[in-house]
C-alpha cells in the first residue's frame, strides 16, 4: 500500500489537483487571476515533488512500472506544463472556461504519465486514449473561431481512425503472441509476416502521435486551428510522452524485430525530415511554420532512436528536455504577439526588434536552439542525436540529416531576418507581457543557453538509462 503511494506518486498528485479543480469549478467562487496563480503554485509544487521519494518498481503485476528514468521523464513533462501555465498567462486570464481547460490538460498529462509507465498493451491503449481525447477537446477552446473547431474535429476523427488501426495491429499481435504483456511479447516474437504487419499497424499509431511522415498530415491543421496553449501542449508534451514510450517499446518490446524497425526508422526519418523542412519553407503562419518545423525535429529524434539503445535513449530524453524549452519559448512569444495583435503571419513580425527587443531576442534564441546553433542547447541535442544515429555507421543517412539541418536553418533564418533586418513602417506595437510570463521567458532563455553547457545534466540522464 505504502509502495503503491510512492510508486504512483506523480499520478496521485496530479489526480488530486484535478479533483481540486473540479471542486473549485463547482464552487466557482474564484477569479481567473487567483485561480491561475494557485494553479501555477500547485504545478510548481507538483514539479518539485517529482524529485523526492522516488523508487523503481512495478504495480498490478507489471501493468504499471516506474524507474528513475521514467520519473525523470514525467518530471520533464511536469516542467513543461508548469511553463505553459506561466507562459500563456495572457491568454488564460481572458479564457472564461479556464478550469476546464486546465482539467483537460492535466487529464491528458495524467494519461501521459500512465502511458510512460504502462507495462502492457491494454494499459498502453487506455492511457493513450486518455492522453489524446482531452487534447482534442482542448483544441476546440477558441470557441468563437471556426478554425478551432475544424482543427479539433480533424484531430478527434483522425486520432479515432488511427487508434482503430492501432487496435487492429494490437489485436493481431495478441493473436500472434497470445499475450499483451510487454515483458512476455518479445519472447513470443519470431518475425513472422503477421507480426511484421501487426507491428507496422501498431507503429502507425506512434507515427500518428509523433506526426511522422506520412502520418503527419493532421498536425499542421490542428496546430493552426487550436489555441496557442493547446498547440504548444500538443507539440511539446504529448510528443515528448509518446517519444518516451516509443523508446521503451522499441528497445524492450520489439527488440527481436530490431533489423526491421531500424530500416523502417531510416526510411521514415529521412522522409519526415525532408517533407517537414520542405513544407516549413513556404509557411507564412507562424503556428503552421512551427508545426512543420516540429515535424522536422521529430525526424531528428528518429535519427537518434535508430541508434543503439543506451545513447539513443539518453540523447532523445535530453533532446526532448531542450525541445521543451526552445519550442515553448517560441510558442510563447508567438502567443504574446497573437493575443495582443492578431498577427500570426511571419511578415507581421518585420522590424519587430525596434519595438520589442526582448521578445525578439528570446524568439531568436529559441529559433537558433531549434536550428541547432551553438552555444544554445539545441546544438548539443541535435549533435547527440546525430552521433547516436551515426553509431550504426551509415554515412548517407547522416549526410542527409546534416544537410537537412541547413534547410531548416534557412527557414529559421527567414524569421530572424524578418524580425531583425527587414524594414517596416508600422511594426507591431510595444507589447507589455505579464511578469510571470517574462520570468518564464527568461527562465527558458537561461535553460536554452545552459542546459547544453552544463554537461552534468546530460550525464545525469545518461546515468539513469
Amino acid at each position, binding site marked *: 500500500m505504502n509502495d503503491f503511494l510512492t510508486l504512483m506518486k506523480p499520478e496521485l498528485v496530479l489526480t488530486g489537483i484535478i479533483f481540486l479543480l473540479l471542486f473549485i469549478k463547482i464552487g466557482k467562487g474564484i477569479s481567473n487571476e487567483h485561480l491561475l496563480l494557485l494553479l501555477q503554485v500547485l504545478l510548481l509544487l507538483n514539479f518539485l515533488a517529482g524529485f523526492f521519494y522516488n523508487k523503481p518498481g512495478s504495480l498490478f503485476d507489471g501493468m504499471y512500472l516506474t524507474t528513475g528514468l521514467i520519473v525523470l521523464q514525467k518530471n520533464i513533462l511536469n516542467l513543461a506544463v508548469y511553463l505553459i501555465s506561466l507562459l500563456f498567462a495572457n491568454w488564460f486570464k481572458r479564457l472564461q472556461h479556464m478550469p476546464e481547460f486546465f482539467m483537460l490538460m492535466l487529464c491528458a498529462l495524467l494519461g501521459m504519465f500512465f502511458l510512460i509507465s504502462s507495462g502492457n498493451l491494454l494499459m498502453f491503449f487506455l492511457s493513450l486514449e486518455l492522453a489524446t481525447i482531452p487534447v482534442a477537446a482542448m483544441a476546440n477552446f477558441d470557441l468563437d473561431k471556426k478554425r478551432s473547431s475544424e482543427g479539433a*474535429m*480533424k484531430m478527434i*476523427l*483522425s486520432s479515432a*481512425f*488511427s487508434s482503430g*488501426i492501432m487496435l487492429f495491429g494490437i489485436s493481431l499481435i495478441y493473436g500472434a503472441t497470445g499475450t499483451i504483456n510487454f515483458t512476455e511479447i518479445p519472447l513470443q516474437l519470431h518475425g513472422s*509476416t503477421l507480426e*511484421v*504487419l501487426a507491428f*507496422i*499497424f501498431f*507503429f*502507425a499509431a506512434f*507515427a*500518428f502521435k509523433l506526426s511522422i*511522415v*506520412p*502520418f503527419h*498530415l*493532421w498536425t*499542421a*491543421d490542428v496546430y493552426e486551428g487550436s489555441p496557442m496553449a493547446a498547440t504548444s501542449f500538443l507539440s511539446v508534451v504529448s510528443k515528448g510522452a509518446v517519444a518516451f514510450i516509443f523508446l521503451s517499446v522499441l528497445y524492450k518490446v520489439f527488440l527481436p524485430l530490431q533489423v*526491421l524497425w531500424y*530500416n*523502417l526508422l531510416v*526510411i*521514415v526519418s529521412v522522409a519526415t525530415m525532408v*517533407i517537414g523542412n*520542405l*513544407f516549413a*519553407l*513556404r509557411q507564412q503562419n507562424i503556428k503552421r511554420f512551427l508545426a512543420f518545423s516540429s515535424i522536422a525535429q521529430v525526424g531528428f529524434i528518429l535519427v537518434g532512436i535508430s541508434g543503439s539503445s543506451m545513447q539513443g535513449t539518453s540523447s532523445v530524453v535530453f533532446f526532448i528536455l531542450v525541445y521543451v524549452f526552445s519550442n515553448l519559448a517560441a510558442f510563447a512569444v508567438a502567443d504574446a504577439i497573437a493575443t495582443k495583435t492578431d498577427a500570426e503571419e511571419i511578415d507581421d513580425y518585420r522590424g519587430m526588434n525596434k519595438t520589442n527587443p526582448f521578445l525578439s531576442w528570446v524568439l531568436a534564441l529559441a529559433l537558433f536552439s531549434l536550428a541547432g546553433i551553438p552555444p544554445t542547447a539545441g546544438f548539443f541535442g541535435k549533435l547527440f542525436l546525430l552521433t547516436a544515429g551515426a553509431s550504426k555507421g551509415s554515412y548517407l543517412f547522416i549526410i542527409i540529416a546534416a544537410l537537412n539541418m541547413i*534547410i531548416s536553418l*534557412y527557414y529559421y533564418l527567414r524569421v530572424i531576418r524578418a524580425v531583425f533586418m527587414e524594414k517596416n513602417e508600422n511594426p507591431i506595437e510595444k507589447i507589455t507581457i505579464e511578469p510571470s510570463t517574462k520570468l518564464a521567458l527568461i527562465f527558458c532563455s537561461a535553460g536554452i543557453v545552459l542546459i547544453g553547457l552544463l554537461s552534468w545534466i546530460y550525464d545525469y540522464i545518461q546515468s539513469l538509462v
Partner: protein
Amino acid sequence: MPNTTLILLIILLPLAGFVMLGIFGRKYFGNTSGVIATSLLLLSTALAFYTAYGYFFKYGKVDGMYQKLVPFKYTWLQFSPGLSIDMGIIIDPVSVMMLVVVTFVSLMVHVFSLGYMKSDERFPTYYAFLGLFTFSMLGLVVSSNIFQIYFFWELVGVSSFLLIGYHYDKPSAVAACKKAFIVTRFADVGFLIGILVLSYSSGTLDFNTLIANLTSPQTNEYKNAIAASFLGMSALTWGLILVFIGAAGKSAMFPLHIWLPDAMEGPTPVSALIHAATMVVAGVFLVARLFPVYAIAAPSALNLVAYVGAFSALFAAVIACTQTDIKRVLAYSTMSQIGYMMFALGVSKYGGENGLGYTASMFHLFTHAMFKALLFLGAGAVIHFVHSNEMKDMGGLRKLMPITHLTFLIGCLAIAGVPPFAGFFSKEEILLAAYQHNQGIYWIALITSALTAFYMFRLYFKIFWNREHHPLHEHHGEGGFSMMMPLVLLAIGAAVAGFIPFGHFVSSDGTRLNTGFHLQFSIAPVALGLAGIFIAMWMYKKQNAIPGKVAASLNGFYKAAYHKFYIDEVYHFITKKIIFNLIGRPAAWFDKYIVDGLVNATGNGTEDFSATIKKFQSGKVQSYAIYFLAGAIGLALLFIYIWK
C-alpha cells in the same frame, strides 16, 4: 679588413633619411629636409669612397686577386636547412664600384634637386623617396644572396614607381608609373622562377656557394643541373635565361623596354638617377654577378644576352634619331648604351684576357653613369629654363646658359666616343671585345656608335644652336649654384673617368687585366663617330629644310621609328584585348553566372519543389486518412515482400 659598421652606415643612412622624412618630413622639417637628406647622403658617399679606397688599395687584393669578402651576413628568413634568405654584404670590385657610382650620382642628384625641386609642396616626400631608392639600390649592389637581390630589386622597382608618379595629379605620370611597375613586375616573375630553379639545382641561395656549386664540374649540383633537361635545354640554362628576363625587364632590353621612355614623366633629376645611371643598370649588374655561371655552365644563355643586348642597342639608337622630346631621346640612348653593356657581357668569356668584355661592360657602366647623369641633369637645367621638353621650344640657348651648354657638350662628346673623353675608352674596349669574339655583333655595335654620335649631336644642336636667339626674353639665370655644381663635377667625371686603368681593378675573375690602347683599332669607331657629328651639324646647326627632306625620303621607316615601331600598340592590344577581354571578363562572367548561379539555383529549386508538393496538405481529413492507411499498408508491403 673592411669595417662592417661603416659599410652598413653607407646603406642605412639613406634609409634613415627615408624614415625620418617620410614620417615627420611634412610636419617638422619642411624645406630643410632637402639639406638633411643631402648631408646624410654626403656622409655615406664619403664612406663609400673611403671603402673603395680601402678595398682597392689596402686589403682587397690578396696575391694578385681581388677577393670576394663577406664582412656581414644575417639569416633573415630560413626556408629549409639549406635554403635561406641572408641579408649580407658582399665586397668585391663590382659592388664597391657600384657603391661609389650610386652614392656619387645620387649625391649629385640630391644637390641638383635642391635647386630644381625648390618650391614644390611635397619637397620632403620627394627626398624621402630618393632616400628609399638610394637605400634599396645600395642594398641591391652589395647583396650576398640571390634572394636578397630580389628583395631590393622589388624595392628599387617600387621606389622608381613612386618617383615616376611623383606628379600624381598628371594622368600621364600615373599611367607611366603603373606601366613601369607592371612591366618590370612581369619580368620579375621570370627572375623569381629563375631563382627557384637555381636554388633547386644549386641547393643554396648564397651567391658564393651557388657560383661555386654551379661552376665546378665535379660537384653533384653541377652534374644534376646540367643533366636535368627540359625542352632540350638544361635546367640551369632555363634558370639563367629566366633570371636574364628579370634583368632585361629592369634594364629595359627589347622587348621589355617600353616602360623606360614613359618613365621620363618623373622629375628630371629622378630620371638622371634612376633611369639613366643606377637602377636601369641593375640588370647588367645582375648578369655580371652571375657571370661565372653564365660563362661556364650555360654559354647558350650568355649568347641570348649578347644578341638581345646588341639588338636593343641598335633598335633604341634608331628610334632615338627620330624623337623630339629631349628626355625621350636620352631615354632611348640610355637603352642603347645598356645594350652595349649587355652584349659586352654576352661576348665575354670567363677569366684572363677573354674576360675583356666583362671588364669593358663594367667600365662602360661606370663611365655611362657619369655622362648620362650629366646629360640628364643638363637636360633638366634646360627644361627648368624653358619649361618644356620639346625641341621645338628650344634652340639658341648656348648664350643664355653657358655652363649648361659646355657641360652638355662634354657629355655629348663622351657618349659619342670622341677621345679623350670617358666614353671613348669604355666603348672602344667593348668594341674590341666584340671584335674578338663575335664579328656580327661588332658591326652592329659600330653602326650603333655612329648613330649615337648623330642623335646626340642632333640633340645638342637643336637645343643650343639651330636658331640665333631664343624667343625667351626675360633671363632668369640657368639655375643657382646647387644646380650648376653637380653639372660641373659630373662633367669632370665624364671627361677624365676614362683614364682610370679599369682592368686593374675590375675583371671577370679578379685578376689584373691590362687594357692597352690600340690606335689602329679605334680609328674606325672614332671616324664613324665624327661622321655622325658632322652630319648632325650639317642638318641641325642652322634651321633648314634638310631634316624634313631626309625624313620624307625614308618616310615609311621614319614613321615607324618615330612611333617606336609600334611596340606600345602591340602591348596595348595584348593586355586590353586579350588578357582583359578573353580571360578577365569570362572569369568574372563565369563566377557571376555559373558558380554563383548554381548556388542560387539550389535555393530556388528547393523552394519550387516545396511549392509543387504542397497539395498533399489538402485540408481534407478523409484524404489524410487515405494517406495514413496507404502509408501503413505500403510500409507493410515494403517490409513483408521487398525488404525482408
